[in-house]
């Protein structure tokens, strides 16, 4: 469980109290205004121009400078499928970029530009932000920033910190780690790769690709946390970025029939997971599951479709106890099916 008010770790609060008492500490004596913070951070954000124009795809996005030597982290996308990729700084300086590597799992990419002493964010294994933390999102949304114009700034809060469950059309996003869901509209063309900064100007995240939530289908406004970006950056620098996850690993499933549960036929993606029958002598039959039971949870994870049941079962490690929660004649009933057997995947 995530505490609600972790905006800063406890020692920071003490430091703040110390500052009030006039004792020197790490915090600046005079806080920058939000406008000054944004202007300073925007110097470290670049507009990325590459391939585009095909089937309505945009040829631009955003990137963040993470080293003074010219390392730019951005999202992996068709924009980078170009012989010539340009990065434009907020002072108008234009650099030809080289694609140094891609991280297919997080869908990030590392570009390098030939500059030195460039303004850059310090990337580090940062503490995660809590829900309700205020942030600014800085990005080249809709490509409206041109030449020496700064990228656009948006104000928001971290609305939720949850594992990414998203899709783009029929394609499921490979990253499953926690992301920051934001309450400002950042799912715009050109925004991916943009910087998310805290009130003190720290880089706390990078805006992700345009995606929809897998369950509700609504557009997602989200950012990869800075710690995840930092790990990706290190892997990209050392050339150890994980290969793309195998397609079946990204969407691992476990057939409930291996436990003796036969669900009603899958007519639609969202066919509700009603039990049609149980196999005689199976774990499901012993646990008392029967026709017309509606599965609502597997080991505490809500399931509202057949597909969700198969995915939730796949997340139970082999040998761990399986508990299926059903609604039966208006009551909630937990059914213990014993250890999850091996196999069952497809």
């Amino acid at each position, binding site marked *: *469980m*995530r505490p*609600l*008010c972790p*905006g800063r770790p406890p020692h920071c609060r003490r430091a*703040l*109290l110390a*500052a*009030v008492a006039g004792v020197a500490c790490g915090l600046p004596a005079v*806080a920058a205004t*939000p406008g000054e913070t944004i202007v300073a951070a925007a110097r470290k954000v670049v507009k990325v121009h590459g391939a585009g124009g095909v089937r309505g795809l945009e040829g631009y996005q955003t990137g963040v400078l993470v080293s003074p030597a010219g390392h730019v982290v951005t999202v992996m996308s068709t924009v980078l499928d170009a012989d010539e990729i340009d990065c434009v700084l907020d002072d108008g300086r234009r650099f030809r970029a080289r694609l140094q590597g891609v991280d297919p799992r997080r869908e990030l990419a590392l570009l390098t530009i030939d500059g030195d002493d460039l303004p850059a964010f310090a990337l580090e294994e940062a503490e995660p932000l*809590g*829900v*309700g*933390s*205020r942030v600014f999102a800085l990005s080249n949304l809709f490509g409206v920033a041109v030449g020496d114009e700064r990228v656009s700034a948006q104000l*928001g*809060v*971290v*609305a*939720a*910190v*949850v594992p990414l469950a998203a899709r783009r059309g029929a394609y499921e996003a490979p990253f499953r780690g926690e992301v920051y*869901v934001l*309450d*400002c*509209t950042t799912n715009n063309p050109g925004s991916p790769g943009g910087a998310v900064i805290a*009130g003190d100007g720290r880089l706390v995240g990078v805006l992700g690709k345009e995606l929809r939530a897998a*369950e*509700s*289908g*609504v*557009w997602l*406004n989200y950012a990869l946390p800075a710690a995840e970006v930092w790990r990706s950056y290190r892997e990209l620098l050392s050339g150890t970025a994980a290969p793309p996850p195998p397609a079946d690993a990204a969407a691992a499933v476990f057939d409930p029939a291996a436990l003796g549960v036969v669900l009603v036929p899958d007519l*639609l*993606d*969202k*066919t*509700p997971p*009603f039990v049609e029958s149980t196999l005689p002598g199976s774990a499901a039959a012993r646990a008392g599951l029967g026709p017309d039971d*509606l599965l*609502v*949870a597997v080991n*505490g994870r*809500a399931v*509202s479709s057949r597909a969700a049941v198969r995915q939730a079962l796949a997340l139970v490690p082999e040998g761990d106890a399986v508990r299926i*929660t059903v*609604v039966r004649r*208006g*009551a*909630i009933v937990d059914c213990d099916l014993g250890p999850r057997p091996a196999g069952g995947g497809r």
Partner: protein
Amino acid sequence: MRAAAVRTIVLVAAVGAAAPGATADAFAGADAFTLEERAFQAAAARVAGAVVRIEPAAASTAAVGAAAEAAPAAGASTGTVVAPGAVITTEFAVPRDVTQAIVVLPGGGRRAAPVVGRDASRGLVLLGLDAEAAAGLVVPEPAPRADLAVGQWTLALGRTWDASTPSVAVGMLSATSRAWGRAVQTDASISPANYGGPLVDVRGRVIGILAPVPADTAGMTSGTELYDSGIGFAVPLEDVLRVLPALREGRTLVPGILGVGYASRDPFTAPATVATCRTGSPAARAGLRTGDTIVAADGRPVSRIAEVRNVLAPKYAGDTVELVVERRGAAGPTRVPLEATLAATLPPWRRPMIGIVPARVAAAGSAGGVEVDWVWPDGPAARAGLVRGDLVTAVADEGGEPQPVDSPTLLAGFIGGLEAGRTATLVVRRDGAERTVAVDVAPLPALVPAGVANPPAASGPPTVERLEAAEVARPPLAVLPGGKAGPPLGVLVYFGPPPGPGDGAAARQAAEPWLDAAARHGVAVVLPTAADPQRWGRDDVAAVARGLDALRARRPVDPRRVAVAGRGPGGACAWLVAEALGPAVGGAALLDAALPRQATVEPTEPGRSLWVLFGGSLTGAPAKAAADRALLGDRGYQVGLLPDVLGDAPPAEELCRWVESLGVL
């Protein structure tokens, strides 16, 4: 700047109040940006124990059907505790055909929660929790509605993303009364992620329950269209608590209906003059009459239809409304106070007629009366001796004061308020003399009469033109009777077989069978062109609407003689056009076709009824058509049959004659 100063003062006070143990000194060194952030988090923490996750416990057939559309789909959702054991969520999470849901307690336990009551007016659902489950939940403090101020901070909480920690979206209060008085508005991001959750002020008091309340703007049906748009709604908690006892009794609260139709279709500019007053409706029982203008509602002066709606829309069936109407009389206008008790439903309206067919007019209010073009064969007016050329100048209900009428639309509204079996009194001018004629009111017959008078003949051969409109790639074709100076045209939109990928020649071939009938009956026949040559689609519906606008710009059109028709797959498209255009369409003909599956067959009301004809070849009619005919009849629609159609040619003569007949009163 005053608002900003007020906001900061409230904020500092709120931080002090919401964070026990924190002294003002602890915040003295922090900038306003950080202070606000902490206030948000403290407010969210204060109300977190009242926010629960809702999971579906049963399948909704309606929701599975809707999932095929692009609309957001509900899975997990959010609910808010409003009283001990009482959780409010939305109909988005718990659709009408579902009787229970699962409440996930903040500790993680799942409880089945039956639907106890519903507020169908606001789209809210009351779920009941047993005492043990309810014990661990927090009942939040309501924010008094009187304290709300536009510009104040608001937080939107949900547990849809994460069962363990409520999500938070921040914005300000945009308006204190929206969606016809049923909701407050915020610019925080409101979406399926927090529908059912609370909108909270910066002190952690609950302002209202977030819900996709339809704002009743054209094209919006579910309210979810506005998700994350900066336009979000919450039903005030005070309003929810007021109806909570009724919901706890297991009631379903529905919007209250008065039962009047207005003379104008523009609610924002027109006065609330009553054109129809349904027999047996709350309005009729209260003594409201056709021709009355509502000038006050619940003590508030009103000058527009929209203002009356603002008073009526928040009310439920069983609520009362006090009205003052201005009534015309021989001695000048008088003001009459009335009190009406609103109803849940009205019986379907059956369109009545007296059997006169007015001459065509393009706009309301023309010739000091309604000119009779022809009388329905063997109809009430024919029996009463009315003939072509008579001018109806006034009309009265049995024993009532005659009301002057100057347009078919006004007379139609009056007739529409009568029931079959009554008698209307007409003041008729013939050869310079006025006399009073009693005419029976009869049900509208289902069959189109064989012999009808034709409007003045067109002065030239019919033309075939394209109804070009901006941004419409394949505009519809129109067969137009010749002579621009002719009488206003009737309109028939006909969806035949999709015209295929062919060029203009094929389309013009489709126009050929219509030329004679269109000219003879003065009907513009609009032949849509499919965006996808293989099939009709929703885009074509929009193109037709644009095409009709283009037609009206070119030639005068009689608003009471507009119909749609379609054959085979085109039938469904024709019905969708009728739905999309609403009262602008008076008839729909389905040839070898049934209603589309997603058709909404609302019970008829005065001013919203269709004359529906079924017909086609002997073998082509789908089985569903018979069931559709029964359904439409039950809902008050006028349902008739066309003679069987032989071959591929459309029944042009019958359909054009029907368009002319649509004008009957």
